[in-house]
């Protein structure tokens, strides 16, 4: 499949293929593996029975098509989960509710980065100033760097929803009105 695409090299073709493969992959991942069969846990470990299977917990939360197949933002917002902000109960945390539109996306929809869902989980210091400058447009983010695990790719593709979900970041239509901050 990959070989055919690289010889025809048409954008439309590869996007079609992308859509197809993504569809195929969601079909394969429709369900959570049990720990015994996930290829990661040792089935001979007698303590395995004490560990929770992902589906038992994740199956009860707002579902999603990729990653953990949980919409973590909604799960948190709608009170399905109440993850603590500090080891010992709750601590004061800094929240920010601004959105940054990133325009350098070629012919794809622009990227909208929302601070709000991020600062519910993360501290400013998790991103600023090492990964991102606190100044719109000051960080030289590119898609290839993201795919290599930098910038947004530090978390997305590792722990947060994966990079196969283009339209969640590329969410502002080129001809639409940018609702910048």
């Amino acid at each position: 499949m990959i070989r055919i695409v690289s010889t025809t090299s048409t954008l439309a073709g590869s996007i079609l293929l992308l859509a197809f493969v993504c569809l195929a992959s969601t079909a394969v991942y429709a369900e959570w593996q049990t720990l015994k069969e996930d290829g990661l846990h040792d089935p001979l470990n007698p303590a395995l029975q004490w560990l929770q299977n992902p589906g038992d917990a994740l199956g009860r939360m707002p579902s999603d098509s990729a990653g953990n197949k949980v919409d973590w933002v909604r799960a948190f917002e709608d009170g399905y989960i109440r993850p603590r902000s500090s080891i010992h109960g709750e601590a004061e945390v800094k929240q920010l509710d601004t959105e940054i539109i990133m325009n350098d996306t070629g012919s794809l929809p622009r990227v909208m980065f929302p601070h709000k869902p991020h600062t519910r989980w993360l501290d400013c210091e998790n991103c600023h100033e090492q990964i991102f400058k606190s100044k719109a447009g000051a960080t030289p983010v590119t898609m290839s760097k993201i795919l290599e695990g930098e910038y947004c790719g530090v978390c997305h593709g590792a722990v947060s929803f994966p990079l196969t979900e283009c339209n969640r970041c590329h969410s502002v239509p080129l001809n639409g009105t940018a609702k910048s901050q």
Partner: protein
Amino acid sequence: MPVCKIRHIRLLAAVLAVPILVIVSLQTQAEYADVVLNRNSEKEGVRPVVYPHWFHRIRFQCRVCHTELGFEMRVGANKVTMEGIIDGKFCGACHDGETAWTVENCDLCHSGLPGMETGITGGHKTLGPGNW
């Protein structure tokens, strides 16, 4: 074939990268964002450690581990040792019999299949830090 603009070539590269990533990822079935820690475990006669992000993020925000406890966000970058854990650092900050069960439950953490390397696993992967 028409001459592509740089921008299109980049776009194509990005688009092409994805099916490849997805295909590669089809080989693994483990839960997304599970971390294997095996810098010394197997060398010293215990199974590799499996750390599940999904389980912990139900209970704790990222900031608890990645700010309060200072875990750097790169698999393998933190020099996690059993001695440190028993001293109440790393996993031991919680697995102390108070916030969570104690370190005596070796097999609950050392639960991985022998032979696995330190890294982050799961459904959809990038070329990211976990794979360096």
